[in-house]
């Protein structure tokens, strides 16, 4: 069964067709990369599916239910989580508290104002586990604003992951990070996601990363889906190569 389906999704900003009649299906367990030049509509699609933006028309169907009208918090509770291209953290809280919040929220404990947060052993253990999986254990007591960019990006993803979502949208998880760290970050994310069986949709610019990890690649251009398929299929697609300038290197390389 498909996990997520967008049906004729449209989001226009005046003349600009950010999402132009997009019909897309994501199957359970897939690792899908969403690529395309700047302004192709990748982030807008992310934003519409995660309820950050309301679509002008069309539907979003998740696990068979129509969630088009559902609010951000409703979609989160249904199992859709996302990370942000421009890091979105709780800057004045520690890495520990950041992740703990996601877990508390998931468990519905955030309504509790008479229990002490740090006494919840189960949550503490889970936070430490998540931090370890993302290589952030040493930053446990560091304020989010005091962490390095690469660490902040990982924390951003860790927050979304800690919600134990069924579907995870990652918006450019390696952007703004040095080339050396990119691979490490993506390795971490991909291994965590695969091990937990989380369906992931990753918006990415770095074609090396895209080809290495994806089950399927969806190429967007000017708000619409240009092509989609396995990495091999996309690699040999000339139209895609023309659109994605500078990808010729990746295309030429052997896997």
């Amino acid at each position, binding site marked *: 069964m498909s996990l997520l389906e967008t049906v004729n999704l449209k989001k226009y900003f005046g003349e600009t067709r950010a999402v132009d009649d997009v019909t897309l299906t994501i199957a359970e367990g897939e690792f899908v990369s969403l690529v395309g030049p700047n302004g192709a509509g990748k982030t807008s699609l992310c934003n519409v599916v995660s309820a950050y933006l309301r679509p002008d028309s069309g539907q979003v169907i998740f696990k068979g239910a129509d969630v088009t009208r559902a609010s951000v918090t409703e979609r989160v509770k249904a199992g859709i989580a996302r990370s942000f291209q421009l890091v*979105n*953290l*709780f800057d004045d809280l520690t890495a520990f508290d950041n992740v703990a919040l996601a877990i*508390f929220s998931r468990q519905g404990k955030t309504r509790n104002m008479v229990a002490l*947060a*740090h*006494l919840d052993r189960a949550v503490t253990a889970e936070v430490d586990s998540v931090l370890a999986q993302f290589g952030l254990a040493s930053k446990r007591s560091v304020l989010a604003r005091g962490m390095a960019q690469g660490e902040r990006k990982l924390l951003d993803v860790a927050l979304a992951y800690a919600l134990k979502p069924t579907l995870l949208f990652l918006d450019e998880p390696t952007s703004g990070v040095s080339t050396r760290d990119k691979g490490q970050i993506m390795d971490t994310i991909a291994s965590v996601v695969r091990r937990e069986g989380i369906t992931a949709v990753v918006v990415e610019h770095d074609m090396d990363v895209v080809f290495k990890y994806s089950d399927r690649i969806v190429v967007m251009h000017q708000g619409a889906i240009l092509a989609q398929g396995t990495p091999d299929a996309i690699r040999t697609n000339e139209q895609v190569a023309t659109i994605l300038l500078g990808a010729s290197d990746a295309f030429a390389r052997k896997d």
Partner: protein
Amino acid sequence: MTTAAIVVGAATGPSASRLTVVALVILVVLAVLPYVIDPYQTVLLTYGLVMAIAALGFNLLLGYTGLLSFGHSAYFGTGAYTVAFIMRDLGVQSMELCILGGLLGTFVVSALFGFVCVRHTRIFFGILTLALSQVLWSLAFKFFWVTGGTDGIRVAYAKLTLFGGMINFAGPGSFQRFVFAYYYYVLALFALATLIMWIIVHSPFGKALQAIRDNETRASFIGISVRRYRWIAFVVSGVFTGLAGVLWVPLNGLTTPDILYWPFSGEIVFMSVLGGFRTFTGPIVGAIVFNYLKTYAVASTEYWQLLLGAVLVILVMLLPAGIVGTVARLAGKLSLAGKLIGWGK
């Protein structure tokens, strides 16, 4: 979680032993003071503790949820006037019933006002809280046949009883007895209020509020209903400040529209900023210090408002972290003194 578990937890959490020791020392000092200071000073300190409760409540919204309210006089005043009404019109004499009534009245008003106000943030939120508190002020002002107008309503301590009638203040020497007994009554409630607030801000709910403060977008994206949580914080905040109003009125003997007027809201803001609104203890310290500051300023010059205004401006420009925040910073993060003062953050 049982109370015992909470207390044990509080006593065994991070830097908890230091925390408990410091808190107990301060409490002991406060308990002993009336024996060494004169009654006037005791009354002054009682006022300070009352305002500390108000500031504590206020800061849940500012320091922890990131909402600056310029209308907290509404809840302080509701608490005070509710007590005045039920004493005058219902003949109630029990302080406990007054507290109950005041808390209920404040709960209703802050729930209503909060519902309206949390639909907005930042400047519009501030203006809205201000406008709503002014509604109450104008009602108290204009409906003088109910509220006594600018003359206000008198609340006589002599009619009051504590602990369900066990302690009363009739007969000779009652004022001295009142000053003494009421101080400890307020002190106990202050300690309780501080403990409850400490638990709240260290609870998952408290963390959620801080998340909303730091990044409301991300907060909603981890499943927190931002508006609902802000509303709950608003109500809790209002009720704490309302309790302060309830405790204030027997001490003052009189409630007038002045405590509903928006500059009084400004004083509550001032106190929290003075102490340091990004810390837990800041508003408490700020309220007590402000109380002394204002008392002595009023006594020494006619232009005390100018003095206090200058203090606020200097504070905001040069020492935005307030007293507690600045001391914590100076003492450094590694030193014990710094940890002691920054405790409970």
